């Protein structure tokens, strides 16, 4: 036991003195997450800046229905409306970025009202907000038509008036309160979509770098081979399993330290909610199991550090991609991606963190962690089998 711990302590000491390892395991992921957090800072939280929209009404006559809706204070929460006299004037406002969307109302050949939206093609979400609001307005107008449909002319006016009265009573209430989405467990704090997305993206990056850290840490075995110390270790009175277990212990401790640093840094530096301590603790155990197993398994497949660069450099991003670590911020992924992610250790490790940070029940996190531990044990067993074949020329020495 003393030799096993001595091996792990020695490797930890050497790791702390390795600028490369410290940089790749701690500095790089924290720096990347800081950049991600900074990117989210502009669009995060509840402070949605209304979309700047210009309305151009080219219809003949003086129909005020849509214009009245347009200037309703409920709409002002999401749209900042202004008016332009002509389409050219509206486009000029769009061109100089005074507005983000131009809405043009016209009635070609004196027919029904037509609505056209002009927006910068590069605008991802915000023009669609204006589109959705106008959809709603047209729905209201269409509702009035439906209410009046089939009624004799003397009744139609009364029905439309009643409809608008009902609409008026509902708009007076706080619409947002009724649209607020609550988590299934009332004990869990509600968070905005943006906060949730930021937490997922950052946690995915931290999980990815934990896997990278484990693979780099596992390479210390190859480094020992190249330095000649592995042969010397094998010639000591320690059985091979102690040497391999010492290496595995080092990788596990290294990733544990890395995970603790990430979990302390995540809320403190990046302002993300990592979930309850028990859930996060379980996720960390799952992550350490998966990363240690995968790190050792990858190193068991190679013979030199030179081979390690291409293999680990290719395998980790691939597993990260398949495990969903790079698409954590993408909504509505195809179901097949979810299935693929659960075929990877990265996917399971991230799933545990995702569940913990989203406030899922502890039993769900524990189940995922159990799968992670199983994957870790499986991979570590494979690695130990490979190492024993490689290093044990004499059966009695193992």
């Amino acid at each position: 036991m003393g030799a096993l711990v001595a091996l792990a302590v020695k490797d930890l000491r050497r790791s702390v003195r390795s600028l490369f390892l410290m940089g790749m395991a701690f500095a790089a992921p924290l720096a990347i997450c800081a950049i991600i957090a900074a990117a989210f800072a502009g669009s995060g939280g509840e402070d949605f800046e209304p979309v700047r929209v210009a309305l151009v009404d080219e219809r003949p006559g003086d129909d005020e229905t849509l214009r009245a809706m347009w200037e309703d204070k409920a709409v002002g929460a999401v749209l900042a409306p202004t008016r332009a006299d002509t389409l050219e004037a509206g486009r000029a406002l769009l061109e100089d970025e005074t507005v983000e969307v131009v809405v043009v109302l016209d009635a070609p050949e004196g027919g029904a009202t037509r609505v056209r939206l002009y927006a910068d093609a590069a605008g991802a979400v915000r023009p669609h907000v204006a589109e959705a609001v106008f959809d709603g307005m047209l729905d209201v107008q269409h509702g009035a038509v439906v209410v009046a449909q089939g009624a004799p002319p003397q009744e139609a006016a009364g029905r439309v008036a009643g409809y608008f009265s009902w609409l008026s009573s509902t708009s007076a209430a706080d619409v947002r309160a009724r649209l607020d989405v609550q988590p299934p467990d009332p004990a869990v704090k509600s968070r905005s979509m943006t906060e949730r997305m930021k937490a997922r993206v950052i946690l995915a990056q931290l999980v990815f770098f934990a896997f990278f850290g484990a693979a780099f840490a596992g390479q210390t075995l190859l480094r020992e081979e190249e330095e000649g110390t592995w042969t010397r270790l094998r010639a000591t009175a320690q059985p091979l399993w102690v040497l391999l277990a010492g290496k595995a212990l080092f990788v596990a401790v290294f990733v544990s330290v890395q995970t603790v640093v990430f979990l302390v840094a995540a809320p403190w530096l990046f302002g993300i909610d990592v979930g309850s301590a028990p859930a996060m603790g379980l996720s960390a155990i799952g992550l350490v199991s998966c990363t240690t197993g995968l790190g050792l398994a990858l190193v068991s497949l190679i013979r030199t550090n030179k081979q390690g660069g291409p293999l680990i450099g290719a395998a980790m991003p691939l597993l990260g991609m398949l495990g969903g670590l790079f698409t954590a911020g993408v909504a509505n992924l195809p179901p097949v991606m979810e299935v693929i992610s659960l075929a990877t250790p990265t996917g399971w490790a991230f799933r545990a963190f995702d569940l913990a940070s989203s406030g899922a029940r502890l039993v769900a996190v524990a189940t995922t962690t159990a799968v992670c531990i199983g994957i870790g044990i499986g991979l570590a067993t494979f690695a130990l089998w490979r190492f024993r074949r490689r290093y044990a020329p004499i059966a009695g020495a193992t």
Partner: protein
Amino acid sequence: MPAPEVTAPAIDVEGLVCRYGDTTVVDGVSFSVHPGELVSLLGPNGAGKSTTISVICGLLAPVAGDARILGRSVLSDPLHARAQLGIVPQDLALYEDLSARENLTFWGRMAGLSGRRLQGRVDDVLALIGLADRSKDKVDTYSGGMKRRLNIGAALVHEPRVIIMDEPTVGIDPQSRRHILDSVKALNREGQAILYTTHHMEEAEELSDRVVILDHGKLIAAGTRAELVAQIGEKTRLRFVVPEARDEVMRAWDALDEVDSVTAHDDEVVLIVDDADAVLPRAFDAVAATCARVSHVSIEPPDLEAVFLHLTGRGLRD
């Protein structure tokens, strides 16, 4: 497993056969190193020395044969056998980003030491290898010779009863080489059995109680230096440099009864004799009787180089 007898050889190699693929690199090698004895394993590169050492250290499985350390088989009882060993590998096997003290402490722990005993042994070894004043510096700041000394020190922390040194003086300066050879002799004087591999005949001659000579994986001779020299019946060489009247003096030397043969190359003349002390005065009398002039003379007693040459037909460094 019952404890072996205390009188068992420190190292006992018996009928060792090792192959890499179809190539037999060690072919039926047997020899022993007794407690307190220093034995050199001598042979040119590729003779099978390092393979033999690898088997003794438990790193390589032989096709046939066995090696025992103080009676413990490296095949059937490898951990106990290796516990008695201190191994100095041919290449440096140190952690260069750790200090000398950290290195020695680590290797001591791997040998099962701990606490005060470990720290005491680390201090002793640092003093022995002359690195006490640099013990806290990282190894990558050391000279080649200092690293070699530390490489030896790492094998001594746990006070092994048997030490194996695989060409520990390769690639170092003469001063460090001298320090290492003196340390080896000191360790041997303290009673430790040492198996020392080298392809430097002078080191084997200076250090060894006995010499085992390997070539092409086979043991070709073993014994004390005197036994080996006697075994091949090699004689002393008298080497003269004769810049003038060489042929004349050669005829005079050839006529002497005590001289077995006279050969010449350029101005150098070599006499093969049984007794150099008896021949030298008569040889110089012969010079005085001719017009020849001798500018240099050297006496070369039979050595291991000559033994190897005699047995294999080539030099150790060929």
